[in-house]
């Protein structure tokens, strides 16, 4: 993309309001294409954009709406009011993403599939946590809080996610366990989410084996702004008398308040929030307090310094597994999905987590921009029953440069270097059950080049990760990627092949605990798991009111890290005892079709259909891979009339064919999931109210063993925006 003109020229001010064709304000992105200045309209659609004096080309865009390109002529120091009206369009081609290539590019230029969750999606679903919003993205499925992109992660109790979480580009997976804390960032701060599918290790290294989820937080608008959001709701009671477990209706409540102030050079925002939930099961209460802040300084055109951070304290009761006969008083039932196994009574977690990050972005010429950042991520959990704790600190740094030769997108080079130091102090991941320390150092240079040849855009790059654990165990992994994008009369074709990897987490190497009555023993010799991912896809408009995106994907994974039973033989007594150890055990293949269709038959009506077909095989055991449903079908639709809107999501997830520890849980009932969410909204000026009914049919189902998925939950969200 063209980058900023050199500093030193005079500037002018463009201001006004952006609305859609129904008159509703739009948080549109406005960009001075020639000058490089950029801003985002606030919740009321108001914007102020600084442009280079003279003739300026301004692009006004928003996901799901047709972009406008406007040319204005302004003298230095002048200001001009300009209102824009964007039309709904499923054929919007100009959505801009920043995750797939580590620089700004159009969605259709990405060599891998990318799903977007816009702030409209976030708002109309009235979600309280980020994972609730990401969960409905095409090809994405959460299993008890663990994200799967095209079946990448399966379910391993939060250990070792095969998806990398970024917050504004900063890696945010836990330092010790490698899992994801979806409550790390208040949902009120999130503007939109980019979900990059397939191996992303060529740019992001470990954990990006199955994909990358980047939470993009709101830009801070100029002037004084605020938002207050209050949520209240109830959980449905069990649909059968035999499953009743309490004599009251569970509830939930939460408040978030955000304030911001911005000038041309300094901007800042602060969010405070808290929420309580009674939970929908026995021993399921939770309380959460959260805060986040962001400050920006723009000392000169093309330079921006950003400091951001968030802190969340979450105390929650745990519901390890539901109760089966013999494990509590099941009142004659084979199992009680709302009641807890007696062995889990008193299980409780206090989880504190947060990060701070500082970034310097500099556009030093029309063709070159660079960024440096530093970050500190801290997680600290304390469990009761079983009693254990862990503190992890991850210090990260990255320097990156993006060169657009000739100032355009025909030849782009991205190079960078990333490093991280993780320190863990823990009793469960420490020294064979005692408190101990472990460290992991990661160091990785990377580079990727994009070259246009005619209509074909070719991409090639690689990253070399060097990982050192406890100053003694060293591993080097190369992650290359090649890709191509070619627009045609039949849409834009894309193809890519890339290698992904995930280094074993400190928790997987050193965990010492007891699970299911068996001792879990450490395995310091774990090696990284790796995968090659291939994809061929196409996206484009098939009519003025419809757009399709489809991809065939194929992943070959090796050395997958999973729990396995081993037999320990005492060297003295020769007694043998079964134990659990995390090992490199499996080869696996995941292939399938990931397709979605978006239609806008009339401006007020939008609908999306998404389907994922997943053929997953555990090649070591010659079985279906565990925790991977074969079919995932989602249909969403929203209709707006004046200030009112209604919408619905329906998702069908086929029955999970195989689970881990099948010999223990194999006889438990498992069913396909059919979940209907309904929503309605009303907006007038700065005030809005939304009603959300998730799992409206109160359908009873589970994905992971003995863990009931949420029941019908009705909530109302009231928002006031200044």
């Amino acid at each position, binding site marked *: 993309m063209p980058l900023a003109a050199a500093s030193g020229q005079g500037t002018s001010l463009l201001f006004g309001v952006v609305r859609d064709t129904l008159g509703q304000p739009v948080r549109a992105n406005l960009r001075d294409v020639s000058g490089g200045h950029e801003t985002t309209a606030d919740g009321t659609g108001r914007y102020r954009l600084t442009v280079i004096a003279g003739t300026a080309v301004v692009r006004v865009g928003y996901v799901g709406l047709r972009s406008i390109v406007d040319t204005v002529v302004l003298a230095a120091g002048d200001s001009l009011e300009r209102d824009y009206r964007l039309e709904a369009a499923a054929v919007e081609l100009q959505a801009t993403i920043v995750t797939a290539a580590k620089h700004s590019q159009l969605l259709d230029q990405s060599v891998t599939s990318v799903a977007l969750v816009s702030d409209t999606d976030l708002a109309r679903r009235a979600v309280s946590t980020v994972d609730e919003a990401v969960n409905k993205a095409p090809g994405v499925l959460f299993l008890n809080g663990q994200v799967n992109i095209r079946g990448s992660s399966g379910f391993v109790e939060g250990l070792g996610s095969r998806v990398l979480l970024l917050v504004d580009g900063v890696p945010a997976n836990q330092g010790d366990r490698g899992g994801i804390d979806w409550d790390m960032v208040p949902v009120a701060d999130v503007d939109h989410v980019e979900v990059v599918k397939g191996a992303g290790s060529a740019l992001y290294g470990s954990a990006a084996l199955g994909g990358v989820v980047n939470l993009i937080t709101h830009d801070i608008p100029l002037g004084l702004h605020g938002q207050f959001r209050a949520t209240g709701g109830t959980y449905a009671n069990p649909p059968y008398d035999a499953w009743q477990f309490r004599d009251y209706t569970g509830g939930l409540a939460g408040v978030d308040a955000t304030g911001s102030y911005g000038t041309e050079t300094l901007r800042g925002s602060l969010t405070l929030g808290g929420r309580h939930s009674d939970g929908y099961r026995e021993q399921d209460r939770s309380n959460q307090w959260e805060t986040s802040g962001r400050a920006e300084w723009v000392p000169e055109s093309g330079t921006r310094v950003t400091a951001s951070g968030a802190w969340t304290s979450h105390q929650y009761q745990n519901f390890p597994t539901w109760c089966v006969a*013999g494990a509590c008083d099941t009142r004659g039932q*084979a199992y009680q999905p709302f009641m807890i196994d007696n062995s889990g009574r008193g299980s409780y977690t206090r989880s504190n987590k947060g990060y701070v990050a500082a970034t310097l972005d500099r556009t030093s010429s029309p063709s070159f921009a660079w960024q440096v950042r530093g970050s500190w991520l801290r997680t600290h959990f304390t469990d009761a029953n079983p009693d254990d704790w862990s503190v992890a600190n991850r210090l990260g740094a990255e320097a990156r440069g993006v060169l657009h030769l000739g100032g355009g997108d025909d030849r782009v080079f991205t190079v960078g270097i990333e490093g991280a130091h993780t320190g863990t102090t823990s009793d469960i991941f420490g020294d064979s059950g005692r408190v101990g320390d472990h460290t992991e150092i990661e160091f990785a240079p990377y580079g990727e080049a994009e070259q246009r040849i005619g209509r074909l855009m070719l991409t090639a790059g690689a990253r070399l990760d060097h990982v050192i654990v406890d100053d003694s165990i060293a591993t080097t992994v190369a992650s290359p990627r090649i890709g191509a994008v070619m627009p045609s009369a039949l849409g834009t074709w894309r193809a890519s092949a890339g290698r992904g990897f995930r280094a074993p987490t400190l928790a997987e190497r050193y965990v010492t605990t007891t699970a299911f009555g*068996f001792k879990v023993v450490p395995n310091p010799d774990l090696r990284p798991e790796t995968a090659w991912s291939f994809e061929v896809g196409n996206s484009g408009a098939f009519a003025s009111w419809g757009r399709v995106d489809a991809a065939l994907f194929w992943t070959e994974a090796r050395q997958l890290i999973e729990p396995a039973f081993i037999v320990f033989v005492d060297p003295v007594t*020769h007694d043998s005892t079964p134990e659990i150890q995390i090992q490199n055990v499996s080869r696996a293949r995941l292939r399938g079709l990931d397709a979605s269709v978006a239609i806008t*038959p009339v401006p007020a009506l939008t609908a999306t259909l998404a389907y994922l077909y997943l053929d997953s095989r555990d090649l070591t055991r010659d079985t279906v891979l565990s925790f991977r449903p074969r079919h995932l079908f989602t249909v969403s639709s929203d209709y707006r009339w004046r200030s009112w809107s209604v919408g619905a999501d329906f998702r069908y997830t086929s029955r999970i064919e195989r689970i881990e520890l099948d010999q223990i849980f194999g*006889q438990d009932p498992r069913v396909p999931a059919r979940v209907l969410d309904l929503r309605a909204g009303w907006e007038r000026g700065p005030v809005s109210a939304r009603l959300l009914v998730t799992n409206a049919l109160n359908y009873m189902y589970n994905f992971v063993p003995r863990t009931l998925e949420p029941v019908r939950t009705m909530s109302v969200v009231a928002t006031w925006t200044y």
Partner: protein
Amino acid sequence: MIAAMRSRVARAALAVVAALACNDGLRPTTCSGICGTVTFNGTAPESTQAVFVVAYHTFPHSRDSLFNFQPPLGALLRPLPLGGGAMFYDIPVEAGRYEWVLAVWVKQGFNLSNADSTLREAGYYRDPADTSQPGVVTVSTPGTAAVDFVVDFAHMHPPCHYYSPPCP
């Protein structure tokens, strides 16, 4: 064009409604596998590690078949809560014919190599027609209920008691 598309949307909506009409989610189940009530006689010895209910397709007449029970060894997660007079139990086993359903008492210090000295039969389901003999249980989907028996801590037998030939 729009009218045709609307028709397609309507058909898709009907398909969704049809799918929703088939609600086959989780439901209350009184039994899956083998279930019933165990009644305790006596007090569990102080050396007790746990008591489990297991089932054998074929009666184990030798050490070689001692561990051929259902659910498999790794599933021995749910020891019967001790101390009460009676307890509803449920063991998740596949459909089929089981010649012996019994409670196994496990002594502290058990491991796979000392099983003969640390395991005891503590009671088993008996043939209603001849209570001196084990009762055969045939499990169908979803399960077989009322497989009730007594656990008697005062009359427990080591595995070799049932071997051919039995231990002295």
